[in-house]
């Protein structure tokens, strides 16, 4: 990032993918006034609260086209109660920032909606024996399981252990387990394939949008792989940057530094409404999107040539509540 900031030819950045990386990058890009648009950072603390303020020394330069975990976790809770009609849940998180944060916001919403949280346990990713944990979970008779974390921190292992002890209830997780089809190396579905029949995951953005089929087909044609997860959001970010550049150009900046600043100002303009592939979007002063949509995916064992893939189910729009 320091290298990019130092090169005046860069006028904006699309990315990063991980919230942890964003946390390290924002202070650098912010000091240089370089526009950053992330397609997939969902950590609430990147944009809201004192922690977010501490990352910035200058006016905001960071926007994201996905909504944050404060929306994503509760959306899963709403889905479990209203659509799956399950009134109790066992929550387990991986003790890390993302996993614990989203599990906590899930728990609060689940309780608010009148559901019962039978237990909120936590197991660090170094845990060896998930079978014992799931045995304890089963004894509490939950109607569903919510996992706060990512595949690498135990998502699939917990699903496998739950199957091992015969705990056959919906297994719901955040975007951390929505990481590709059963054909993708290291993905949740690749590892937990045979026990994933009751698995659900969320994405902090619209799972479908006008022209999604065409987008997917074009993506596949261009890159030879299926569009997964936040591919649509990646494109949306590019659209944001190009749009901002077009508007910045109209101000006739005198040099590259002025252009970079003009792009930042245009990009973070809270009054401007973008028309992106994922829909009409505005960004607030924090850089968060106005589109508070979380989409829900279920497991489709027939997809990806029988290897199984996530199938878009529905979306929960927190703005319409």
């Amino acid at each position, binding site marked *: 990032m320091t290298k990019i900031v130092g090169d005046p030819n860069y006028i904006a950045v699309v990315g990063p993918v991980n919230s942890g990386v964003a946390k390290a990058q924002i202070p650098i890009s912010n000091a240089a006034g370089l526009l950053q648009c992330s397609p997939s950072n969902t950590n609430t603390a990147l944009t809201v609260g004192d922690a977010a303020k501490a990352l910035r020394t200058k006016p905001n330069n960071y926007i994201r086209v996905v909504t944050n975990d404060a929306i994503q976790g509760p959306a899963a809770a709403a889905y479990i109660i209203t659509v799956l009609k399950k009134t109790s849940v066992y929550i387990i998180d991986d*003790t890390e920032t993302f996993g614990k944060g989203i599990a906590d916001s899930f728990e609060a919403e689940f309780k608010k909606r009148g559901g019962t949280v039978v*237990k909120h*346990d*936590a*197991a*660090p990713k*170094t*845990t*060896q*024996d*998930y*079978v*014992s*944990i799931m*045995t*304890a979970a089963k*004894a*509490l008779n939950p109607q569903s399981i919510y996992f706060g974390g990512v*595949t*690498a921190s135990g998502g*699939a*292992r917990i699903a*496998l*252990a739950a*199957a*091992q*002890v*015969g705990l056959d209830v919906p297994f719901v997780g955040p975007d951390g387990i929505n990481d590709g089809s059963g054909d993708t*190396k*290291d993905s949740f579905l*690749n*590892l937990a*394939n*045979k026990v994933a029949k009751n698995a659900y995951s969320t994405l902090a953005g619209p799972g479908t949008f006008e022209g999604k089929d065409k987008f997917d087909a074009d993506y596949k044609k261009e890159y030879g792989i299926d569009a997964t997860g936040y591919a649509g959001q990646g494109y949306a970010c590019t659209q944001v940057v190009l749009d901002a550049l077009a508007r910045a150009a109209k101000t006739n900046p005198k040099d590259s530094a002025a252009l970079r600043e003009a792009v930042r100002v245009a990009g973070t303009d809270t009054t401007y409404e973008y028309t992106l592939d994922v829909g009409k979007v505005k960004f607030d002063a924090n850089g968060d999107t106005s589109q508070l949509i979380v989409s829900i995916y279920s497991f489709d064992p027939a997809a990806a040539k029988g290897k199984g893939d996530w199938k878009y189910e529905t979306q929960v729009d927190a703005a319409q509540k």
Partner: protein
Amino acid sequence: MTAIASPAAQPNPLSRGIRMTVIAVVAVVAYMLILWVLLFGLGGRTVANAFPEALQQTVNALSIGAIYALIALGYTMVYGIIELINFAHGDIFMLGAFLATVFIAGITGNNDAVTNIPLLIVLLLGALVFTMPIIGLLNVGIERAVYRPLRHAPRLAPLITAVGVSFILQNVALTIAGSGDRKSPQIFPLDWTIPIGGAQVSILSIFIFVLAMLLMLALQAFVSRTRLGRAMRATAQDQEASALMGVDANQTISLTFLIGGVLAAAAGLVWGLRFGFVRFDLGFNSGLKAFTAAVLGGIGNITGAVIGGFIIGFIENGAASLGYSRWSEFLVFVILTLVLLFKPTGILGQLTGDRA
């Protein structure tokens, strides 16, 4: 030097074996009853449904404890004979898990349960016959190539080298298998369970426990009642004196590494069967726990390593049962610290006798 203790070193091995068995059974039952009480006392279960859960958890504890015990034996035997903490041993276990996974996946081709019993038996035996010698010989080769040249170097040199070997093995696995979890075929059908006292005890748990017990009993018999086992104990006590009695120290040390590797390979196989995944850094955590087990039981002491392995398994399981999974590692090390505070040589430390 540290001795590898064995029942034969006692005047009356049989009665000691019976006594140990009785203590073990009492301890396991006691754990189950305590867990039962804690579950309905603290965990909010009812008296009736806490019992099957306690029973189930005890079975889980025995399974994971057996895996730790198998790994811990490798640490303790190597320490007993050349006073080296073989940090690479956990990674030997990890490679064993990978190799077993490769073997089973190579034959079954997928991740499905095998309900054909003869085929299942062939698969399990095949995996053992395939992985045990390879991993055992790999361990021997590491000793031959890396530790032996450093046999007479200052103690720190082989220790640091062992850490290096650990990193090498981890990176070999990382390069070949990648950084994520790799799925390991769970060939035991999940619905193969035996109802006991309201709990569903899986055949897999029983298999793991029985296999581990058989291997440990075979090891105990080998060490206490055979020529090579005696040579091993003699070398552990006084390498020079045993060399002057005609015992080839190098051969005996190689044999120790072979046995350690073989047991780690068996542990690796059952790991994959139970948890359904293998991963390049698996050896680090499991190795750390198993090493702790060896120290807890009294490092250098075979029986101690087995006892330590089960204790660690029970501590972890207790934490998970009561919903304090995140504290399990903390608890393990608190108990280790407490034991070492009052008994610096570990639980069975006195059996190792002369620490010259």
